[in-house]
């Protein structure tokens, strides 16, 4: 992080206040990097998974995967500005970014012709994302209000995504209905990073 600005304007008050509340800013940067890394890689792998949602079973799944895919990209967009606000940065090399992602790569399973196997991968990815953002929420609650607000909005959508895939796998009753448009992100759209929504 460049420190030249400190000669001009002193310490960042936005960082100072969260440090005074007990936040270890370096730890928070690492948690956010893990979280946005998982969102970015998930967006990438969901693209592949969606392409393989074909046939009579797969076509019905495709639009739901697309909603989750674009909303996961939105999560990346929503949190990355916060990472830079607190002095963090994305790695220069995308390979490193993938290696430090908080969740596993959502690889296309070998037997992707069975749509249920794709659903299982999707479900695992969402569950990891919930745990990942849960860590950020737990760490920032009542200490870093801005990061918490973004993380809890993301987490709400991740929990919805988990519910979608659980319902598809188990046929349990569901309140889920389609989004108004792909990538609607009803909870995250109020965050500043999503200028396209």
């Amino acid at each position: 992080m460049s420190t030249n600005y400190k000669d001009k304007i002193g310490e960042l008050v936005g960082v100072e206040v969260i440090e005074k509340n007990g936040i270890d800013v370096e730890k928070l940067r690492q948690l956010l990097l893990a979280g946005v890394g998982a969102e970015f890689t998930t967006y990438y792998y969901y693209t592949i998974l969606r392409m393989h949602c074909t046939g009579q079973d797969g076509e019905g799944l495709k639009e739901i995967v697309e909603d989750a895919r674009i909303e996961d990209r939105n999560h990346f967009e929503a949190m990355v500005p916060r990472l830079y606000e607190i002095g963090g940065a994305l790695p220069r090399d995308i390979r490193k970014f993938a290696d430090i992602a908080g969740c596993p790569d959502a690889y296309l399973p070998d037997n992707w012709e069975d749509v249920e196997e794709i659903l299982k991968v999707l479900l695992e990815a969402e569950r990891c994302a919930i745990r990942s953002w849960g860590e950020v929420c737990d760490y920032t609650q009542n200490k870093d209000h801005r990061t918490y607000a973004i993380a809890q909005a993301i987490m709400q959508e991740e929990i919805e995504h988990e519910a979608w895939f659980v319902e598809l796998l188990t046929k349990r009753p569901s309140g889920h209905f389609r989004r108004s448009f792909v990538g609607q992100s009803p909870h995250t759209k109020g965050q500043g990073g999503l200028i396209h929504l």
Partner: protein
Amino acid sequence: MVKICRSDDIPEGSLKKFTVGRTDIAVGRRNNTLFACSNWCPHKGASMHKGYYKDNNIVCYMHNYEFDVCTGRLTNMKSWKKSKTWVEQDPAWRASGDLVMYDVLDDGSWIHVLVPSSEGQG
């Protein structure tokens, strides 16, 4: 050393989080062994106090990596292959160090933990 809680606050099988300065630590008792470790999983940073025990290991709830409660050593790096058709993760993503352990003392009434000053300063 820093006094963190009463001895009976950490019964057998428990695992709790404490904060010393800015450092979160997990303190637990497993198979009559009292231990204190960093609450930061060396794999991806999950909170160790949310984990559970398996044999003599503490298991991270995030990716189920297992660490020995006595040494902190990584003893089991869980596979991502949930079935034979799932693809294993890249070794660089799977890599993890060992869990950071702290000296801990139970004087019969209180539990004390030694957290290096560079980590524990608030």
